[in-house]
């Protein structure tokens, strides 16, 4: 696996994640459509399923999900320096934008143009997320386990207000128990 990626330049990793970071509105979840275009379609660094796995993995590691996902992909491509390039890339544009805001804070307050743009940006991000949810659910629902778990999780978090962290930890525990039970059965 590593051999195909030996030539992936650190600069290219940095540039690709800078692009993703520059468009990252609406938190870590909104990262998936951006990653799909840049990392899967354009650069072909991994398949959609692998990207979804990195994204799932990123929830388990301490830290910001968007940063974790970028680092995991960077790590796959170039090890330590890949994680560094991906991280610097994904935070670069947000860093300078917030810096500009912090310097000019008093002059920007209540700028109507910004609020209007934001009012249009929000539904665009929401629609993009709905599109990714649709694509992911189309993959998950192919197995019975897949569609039951997806809908159950959505119900628990959305309607019952269960926290995402608890759902993820329960899921990991369920996977380990599933493995242990299957292994015990095989032995007898």
């Amino acid at each position, binding site marked *: 696996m590593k051999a195909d990626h030996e030539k992936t330049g650190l600069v290219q990793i940095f540039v690709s994640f800078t692009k993703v970071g520059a468009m990252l509105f609406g938190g870590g979840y909104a990262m998936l459509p951006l990653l799909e275009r840049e990392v899967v379609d354009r650069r072909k660094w991994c398949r959609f399923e692998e990207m979804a796995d990195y994204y799932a993995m990123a929830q388990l590691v301490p830290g910001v999900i968007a940063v974790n996902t970028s680092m995991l992909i960077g790590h796959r491509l170039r090890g330590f320096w890949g994680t560094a390039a991906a991280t610097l890339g994904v935070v670069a544009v947000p860093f300078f934008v917030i810096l500009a805001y912090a310097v000019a804070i008093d002059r920007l307050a209540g700028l109507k143009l910004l609020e209007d743009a934001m009012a249009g940006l929000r539904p665009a991000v929401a629609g993009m997320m709905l599109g990714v949810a649709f694509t992911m659910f189309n993959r998950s629902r192919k197995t019975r386990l897949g569609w039951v778990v997806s809908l159950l999780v959505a119900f628990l978090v959305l309607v019952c207000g269960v926290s995402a962290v608890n759902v993820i930890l329960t*899921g990991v525990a369920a*996977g380990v128990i599933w493995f242990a039970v299957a292994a015990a059965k095989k032995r007898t």
Partner: protein
Amino acid sequence: MNLFLKLAYVFFKIGILTVGGGLAMIPIIQHEMVSRGWLDNQQFLDILGIAQMTPGPMSVNTATFVGYRVIDAAHPGSVWIAVAGALVGTLAVCAPSLICINLFGPFWDKNRNHPCMARVFDILRPLVTGLVITAAVLLVLNALWGDSFREVLERMPDYRMFGIVVVSFVLTAFTKFSPVYILLGGAAIGVLSGLL
């Protein structure tokens, strides 16, 4: 303690505690900022709003902003020292991920195909799908009806905003249309409908 070290420590801690998504972190970050007198509650709400209007994860945005403000307040008039503060905050919040992923990365690569890992991911994949569905539904409700979800029953959403959601959904789900143009298009419609 040196203010830079304190910044690095606080945001490193926030980075470690962030498991499973930034939104769950809001109360913790708020407590850290307010109890230290780095931000008051109003400033914290403002920075949350700004974090949503600008690219980047909320905790990274907060780290950049607070890093700048805290150092700027201590050394007024010297912009470059304050910029260094922003840099320290930003890197500190990312550092736990950098350490964990480089420590566990080789282990994860080696054991990817281990049956136990495979079972965990058989569950995690649809589970994350459920989380993404949840996030999408919440974002749509928030974009069309604002923060009070009771309004869903009481009023129709703005037809322009509803149109943006539908077009953006169709373009993302069924075409390879670039997200940049979808975002720019949405922002442009927002600005235009503000002018009219």
